[in-house]
């Protein structure tokens, strides 16, 4: 099992629910990080019209992004959540992607990773099964059974 990737999943949840969005940003692709802000910011945007307007502009306006990060960070920390993460398996998907299967408080989940500049990053868009050549399939199988 890829230890770096497994620890990234746990780090993701720890950072998220402590409101440390900078750490979340560091371990994700840019587009995925935007999606985190949009999905976890949903509750706030339903309660706060100003936040909703700022959230809609995070990709084009730096000050809106900073305002959203500040409010959401405080809101996430106030949730007092610390889910139990149990890593089950890491599957290769081609040579540049991996999928982690895990449970969050007992519920089955998946996170997809892609490799960029030598680093594995969480990438919500990387779940598409990548067609593999015969030789890369064999290679991935060998890698998956290695301790």
């Amino acid at each position, binding site marked *: 099992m890829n230890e770096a990737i497994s620890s990234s999943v746990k780090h993701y949840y720890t950072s998220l629910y402590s409101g440390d969005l900078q750490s979340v940003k560091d371990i994700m692709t840019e587009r995925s990080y935007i999606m985190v802000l949009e*999905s976890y910011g*949903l*509750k706030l945007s339903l309660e706060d019209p100003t936040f909703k307007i700022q959230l809609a502009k995070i990709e084009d306006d730096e000050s809106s992004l900073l305002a959203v990060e500040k409010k959401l960070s405080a809101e996430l920390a106030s949730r007092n959540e610390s889910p139990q993460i149990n890593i089950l398996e890491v599957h290769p998907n081609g040579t540049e992607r991996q999928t982690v299967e895990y449970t969050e408080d007992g519920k089955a*989940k*998946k996170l997809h990773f892609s490799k960029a500049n030598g680093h594995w990053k969480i990438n*919500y*868009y990387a779940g*598409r099964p990548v067609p593999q050549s015969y030789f890369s399939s064999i290679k991935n199988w060998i890698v998956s059974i290695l301790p």
Partner: protein
Amino acid sequence: MNKSTKQNNRRGFLSKMLVTGASSIALLSSSAYAKGRKSVATTTKLTEEQLDELYFIYQEEKLARDVYITLGEMYPSENTFASIQLSEQRHIDSAQELCEKYKIDLSRVNEDEVGNFDIDVLQKLYTTLVAEGSDSLTAALEKGIFIEELDIADLTKAIDKMEMPDDVVRVYENLREGSYNHLESFQVALARV
């Protein structure tokens, strides 16, 4: 599951929706599906990022349908959910056709399993939207507006920033047109409450 079985399941799903009383309601964006079907331009080779986007949009359309199915069951007297979930099924079909055209493997997505997603962030959105929508009919209709605005924003991004080929753009423009119609329907329904 082979293709014909999957198609039969989809027909089964649609039939079930028709039996539940949605048949009398006009499909607000049936044109989106019809126009999408005409897009048969020569298949261009897409980049990995473009293929990922197609895969994602397909699942995002499923998110809309699944939330409307669940909220529609909570508020059976509000027909807007029933009519739009049928239309969303057609959106899923259009997005699925694009994926199949570009040979994207959809085997990890169980389209018939309502509320289950391969992408964690969509799972999170589904859970939050349903939970928030369960507060009241007004809250549920507001969630409909949120979903349609999200769909419109993501489709616009895919159209404007991803340099997709013409056939994909045509389908996405039709889906977006459908989402604008859905948005208007939710706004009208919300004003009635």
